[in-house]
């Protein structure tokens, strides 16, 4: 059972409303993505906590339906995905 890019983006935005999300499929199996998530909410929390926020937004799908999500997080709107 895989996920679509849109599903991932909408789940993230549901619990991090101000998030700007850039996503790329690394393979076309719906299982391998890379994503950049930018949000003000990431200010003053460390990288582990930022990633945990995104994993929580994905409601337990990370590591289950979603095998690989190369994740980059930032509170700086200028940050680029690659």
């Amino acid at each position, binding site marked *: 059972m895989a996920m679509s890019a849109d599903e991932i983006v909408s789940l993230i935005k549901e619990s991090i409303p101000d998030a700007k999300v850039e996503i790329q499929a690394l393979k076309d199996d719906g299982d391998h993505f890379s994503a950049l998530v930018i949000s003000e909410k990431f200010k003053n929390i460390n990288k*582990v906590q930022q990633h*945990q926020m995104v*994993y929580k937004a994905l409601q337990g799908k990370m*590591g289950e339906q979603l095998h690989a999500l*190369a*994740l980059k997080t930032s509170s700086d709107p200028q940050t680029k995905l690659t």
Partner: protein
Amino acid sequence: MSEKNIQDYIKQEISDSEVLLFMKGTPVFPQCGFSSTVVQILTQVGVKYKSIDVLSDNEIRQGIKEFSDWPTIPQLYIKGEFVGGCDIITEMYQSGELNTFLESKGIELQKPSI
């Protein structure tokens, strides 16, 4: 092992090792690309570390995810602190932050002999 023992075992391993990597497979035979990436980074940085193969015991594989509230493997611990998975360790390595962090914790780095 019971649930409680697994968490105690994990806590003990983490406090006993300066640098500890929970991974899939072993440093010589990593069984997943993400684990292999972190192994290569630790080798490049020249830090001695202990590894635990979560594939050898499914209770550890699930237990470590609960322990750190982190859904994936690999997981790197430095001086008892969860530092990150493949993404964060790669980012830290590329920015030089990983070296600085290790040195700030008083951990010796051996430059790889070229």
